[in-house]
């Protein structure tokens, strides 16, 4: 996948596609977003990463003019999301987590409706429609009612529709959530294709770590705040240490031995004792010699974004989701009982 490097982005963007200053949103007493600030350069693929309930969707909703911020400001495509709402809307494409297609209409009718709502010049609609439908491989199915489409086809059609009016910024909220691996990889192919063919900025949220790696830059969000923001490579370099996983008969004893013998903090994750140490490969012989416990297997890996997430938030993204479930349900309650109005 051809990725633009950071200096190239800097030269390509005269103005930032998105500029966010101390953006806040509370639902009643619950602060869903607690003052975030960042910039996204034009042409960038920017990933918003974090567990469910971290405030990603609320942030994206504010940037898309769907929710009014309770504090701070945001410019999208050069326009203020509150005072120039319609100008923002003209320049953004949206793909939500849940489907927003009309199932009774055909793929083509859905796109035409979108073009009419956005006031796209009629003469250009057929050509543009063909282009976006071909990109997502649905041109042959254009006359079929959307009701008969699978989940993956619907998501692809939504992406096509989001692009119908040549937006400058495309917002994708969990675009690959719940999709099969094949569709997920197709969607990533479209994203890289778009970056090359159209002058478009992509802002996406995800909680798949492997997908976050494909972004130019990522921001990790947790409990309504941006914990860290950088390129995936820089983030991983920041962790520094390698991840070592060992399997033993007695995990408790192994963790104790690691602490006493090497001053390392191990923890059980996904069925193995895991710890971080610099130069992992060189450490392994020492480990076997000095641990004093039989080791059944060992693996050493370079840091992943999972590790980045862990080093910044203290938990894995999966554990964070479980612990934030209570917080999330509180926010949900607030939203459902009218906190959003």
């Amino acid at each position, binding site marked *: 996948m051809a990725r633009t490097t950071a200096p190239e982005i800097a030269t390509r963007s005269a103005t930032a596609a998105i500029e966010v200053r101390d953006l806040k949103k509370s639902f009643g007493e619950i602060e869903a977003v607690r003052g975030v600030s960042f910039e996204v350069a034009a042409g960038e693929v920017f990933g918003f990463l974090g567990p469910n309930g971290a405030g990603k969707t609320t942030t994206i909703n504010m940037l898309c003019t769907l929710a009014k911020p309770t504090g701070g400001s945001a410019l999208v495509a050069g326009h203020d999301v509150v005072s120039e709402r319609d100008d923002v809307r003209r320049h953004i494409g949206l793909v939500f987590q849940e489907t*927003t297609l009309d199932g009774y209409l055909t793929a083509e009718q859905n796109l035409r409706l979108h*073009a009419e*709502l956005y006031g*796209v*010049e009629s003469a250009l609609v057929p050509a543009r429609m063909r*282009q976006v439908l071909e*990109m997502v*491989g649905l041109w042959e199915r254009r006359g079929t009612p959307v009701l008969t489409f699978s989940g993956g086809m619907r998501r692809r059609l939504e992406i096509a529709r989001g692009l119908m009016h040549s937006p400058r910024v495309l917002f994708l909220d969990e675009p690959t959530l719940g999709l099969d691996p094949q569709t997920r990889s197709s969607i990533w192919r479209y994203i890289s*294709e778009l970056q090359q063919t159209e002058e478009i900025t992509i802002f996406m949220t995800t909680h798949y770590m492997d997908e976050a790696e494909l972004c130019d830059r990522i921001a990790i969000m947790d409990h309504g705040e941006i914990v860290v923001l950088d390129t995936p490579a820089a983030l991983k370099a920041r962790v520094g240490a390698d991840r070592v996983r060992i399997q033993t008969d007695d995990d408790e004893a192994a963790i104790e031995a690691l602490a006493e013998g090497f001053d390392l903090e191990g923890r059980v994750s996904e069925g193995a004792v895991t710890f971080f140490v610099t130069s992992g490969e060189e450490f392994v012989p020492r480990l076997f010699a000095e641990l004093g416990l039989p080791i059944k297997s060992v693996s050493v890996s370079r840091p992943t974004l999972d590790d980045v997430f862990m080093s910044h938030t203290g938990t894995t993204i999966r554990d964070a989701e479980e612990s934030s479930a209570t917080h999330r349900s509180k926010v949900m309650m607030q939203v459902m009982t009218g906190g959003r*109005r």
Partner: protein
Amino acid sequence: MSATEATVVTRPAPPEVVRVRVPPRSFRSELRAMKIVWQRELIRFKSDRMRIATALVQPLLFLFVLGSGLQQLSSASTHGVDLKTFIYPGILCIAVMFTAMFSAASIVWDREFGFLREMMVAPVRRSSIVIGKCLGGATVASFQGVILLALAGAVHVPYDPLLILGVFGLQLLLAFSITAFGVMVAARIKQMQSFMGVMQMIVMPMFFISGALFPVANLPGWLAVLNRIDPLTYAVDPMRRLVFNHLDISAAARKALDPGVTWWGWHVPALLEAGVVLALGLVMLAIAIWEFNASE
């Protein structure tokens, strides 16, 4: 799924990028948005034959079953006029009402299936979308009314072009107001079950009180009051007057069956009655727009 994936693989190389532009909001763009929302109602109505058929069941039951069944009891007081002929104008109204109600209900479905969001985030005024929706509902409901209009011959009503035009106009008006009412309710009530419940609770009494099934003169006091405040009364009455103008019946029969709505003894003219329906429709449309503007 596998078939569609195959098309992804064999897809030709992407052609030159077609770049389009979204112009700033203008009156023309609002009209376009309104038109496409209106068209969507028509497309969906056409593709839903089941809905066209089921929406006919209730009016036809009232007209032919109730009309024929009660004929024996009422023949003495109808001055030789078929009961079916008498209730026909009322039936022309309720056929439109039920369809308009379903059109408005589709806003609740749209919200449930997420499509409402697609319309709400478009760079157009919410009012354009709400107006398009109401006009769409009105058009679709009037089509349904036309199907019943075709039955005129079966209930001894002549096919007069002026009559047909007048009936269609009144139906359009009524359908618009009912859709506006439904959209107004749909802005607040977000679950389909509750929406249908509320609509039934309001629409059925409105229908029974309106005088669709009985003459509005010499009613018991409480019913007369309810009848005069029922908005549907002001659609049924001009409809009946219009139909009866084209019937060849005795003056006594006309007086008994089509007494006309009175306010403290004053005969309300048909045009004013239509005006009442239109005014109520516009007020409810305004409330619906306000409600959709207020929601995020």
